[in-house]
């Protein structure tokens, strides 16, 4: 079976980020998963066990002082060395801010091309095909790379498949020196305390709030309904712009694209750019006081009403239902 390289993202403390299981799961659909990590000296061996449990057959660690201090270069240098060592049929990289730079540079460096933002991959007659969901899920397209290395950036949270656990064979090599002027990481800011809610990407239920919530204080209502449903919290761009929530909550064309079992839109008008990030949800519920809001065009269940009246009643009804169901 062909080798498939996967770039493992690590946190500032060297831990494996949440993108790894999906990337290795995707690689296992195509061939033998080889995990590639750039790590600080002496820290690589520690991650090999966990990467094996996630399904990596080989773990290639390039260790050097630059890892965590310089942006993208350590990962690029590690992957370039791994491409020579493993002659892979494809390289899978998370479509995240940190990692897609590596994908672009690797394509130029190795004479490859990038299939961008894939939501699925498959192998067909010896060719590796990337499946994309474009224009807010209006279209599904398939693409592949001709005449060079296949590099695929994978949309975070989109791959559900997981690989069977393996005992990874570990290779540790020194990280080669940087070869172009570096972008230096001056400071790492960790996000605030964990909210205990499901992550937005890949969530099975999402409750989002828009400008209709009116203030940051009122936005708590969105969180309360999310907690009653066990859902992740999302937002429209207008709610983000108004400072109700951080940008990482944004659902839509330029935010996160979600496809949950249930999507609840509160005080969101349903602009086309918002719908682009949620219209492939299985069931959509909308509460909006404007009867003509475009969000109702995609809602399976719409309530023309005031969120401040309806949502507290809804939370009560959900809690009551869960109480009876528990008996």
């Amino acid at each position, binding site marked *: 079976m062909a080798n498939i390289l996967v770039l493992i*993202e690590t946190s500032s403390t060297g831990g494996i980020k949440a993108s790894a299981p999906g990337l290795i799961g995707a690689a296992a659909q195509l061939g033998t998963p080889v995990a590639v990590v750039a790590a600080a000296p002496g820290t690589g061996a520690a991650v090999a066990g966990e990467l094996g449990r996630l399904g990596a057959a080989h773990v290639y660690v390039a260790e050097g002082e630059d890892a965590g201090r310089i*942006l*993208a270069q350590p990962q690029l240098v590690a992957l370039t060395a791994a491409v020579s060592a493993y002659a892979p049929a494809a390289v899978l990289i998370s*479509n995240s*801010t*940190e990692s897609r*730079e590596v*994908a*672009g*540079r690797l394509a*130029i460096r190795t*004479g490859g*091309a*990038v299939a*961008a*933002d894939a939501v699925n991959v498959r192998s067909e007659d010896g060719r590796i095909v990337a499946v994309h969901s*474009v*224009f807010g899920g*209006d*279209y599904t*397209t*398939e*693409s592949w790379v*001709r*005449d*060079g290395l296949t590099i695929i*950036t994978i949309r975070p949270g989109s791959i559900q498949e997981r690989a069977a656990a393996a005992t990874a064979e570990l290779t540790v090599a020194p990280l080669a020196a940087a070869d*172009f*002027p*570096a*972008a*230096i*990481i*001056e400071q*790492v*800011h*960790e*996000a605030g305390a964990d909210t205990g809610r499901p992550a937005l990407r890949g969530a099975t239920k999402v409750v989002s709030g828009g400008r209709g919530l009116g203030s940051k204080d009122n936005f708590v209502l969105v969180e309360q309904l999310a907690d009653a449903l066990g859902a992740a919290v999302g937002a429209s761009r207008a709610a983000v712009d108004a400072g109700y929530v951080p*940008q*990482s909550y944004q659902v839509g*064309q*330029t935010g996160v694209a979600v496809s949950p079992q249930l999507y609840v839109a509160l005080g969101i008008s349903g*602009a*086309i750019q918002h719908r682009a990030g949620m*219209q492939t949800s299985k069931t959509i*519920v909308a509460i909006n006081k404007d009867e003509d809001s475009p969000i109702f*065009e995609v809602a399976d*269940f*719409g*309530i*023309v*009403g*005031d969120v401040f*009246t*309806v949502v507290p*009643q*809804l939370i009560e009804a*959900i809690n009551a*239902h*869960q109480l009876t169901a528990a008996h």
Partner: protein
Amino acid sequence: MKIVVLVKQVPDTYEDRKIDLSSGLLDRDASDIVPDEINERALESALRYKDGQKATEIVVLTMGPDSATKTLRKMLSMGADSAIHIVDDALAASDMVQTARVLAAAIQRGGFDLVLAGNESTDGRGGVVPAMVAEILGLPLLPSLDALELEAGSVSGTCSIDGGSLSVRAPLPAVVSVTERSAEARFPNFKGIMMAKRKPVETMDRASLDLGTAAVAASVVGSATKRPARAAGTKIIDDGTAAQELAGFLASNRLI
């Protein structure tokens, strides 16, 4: 300081955008074509620097069909000094590698201190053209900055990542991409619109760029299918019982 801003024209996101199902490519006739909002923000970041440092020169660069002159004119009326338009039928349906090679070759001809781009376009959404350009030019990239701080000799800013953010800095020359949180673009004023008519727009074709003839890898689209449109479901007006009805709907669909 010389700043090159990479701009792309895209189908207006306020309308339905279409893919030609036979070629898998963008159907450019299906919607209005506008300058990408993200690139207006990139230009705005450059203009704010120029507001304080008058000697700054801003060049906008696009690769696109004839109609892209409209986008360039808008950028010039906002305050860019000159424009370069790479237009050639042979470049239609370019993938990202090809796009980056063409843009980098054009950037290299003129000299620069900073290249500014959007973090991702609203149509292709690949988000790797800036990195490819940086790699070809042998330069650092500061990706997805919400705001940038430009000083003599270096550029810095903050980029959001999963689980937090990073403060990053690079020496000039460098490539920077900005997010939709960056500078909101100004509107062109009357004086700007009049002045834009006299500003130089250089057009060039593929042959005038030093691209070589060797075959390069390419990303190709195999097939495209359209998802059936979503139909609207039940819509009720709240009379005090809507929340109960919704809870019933959620329960019957096993969502609570």
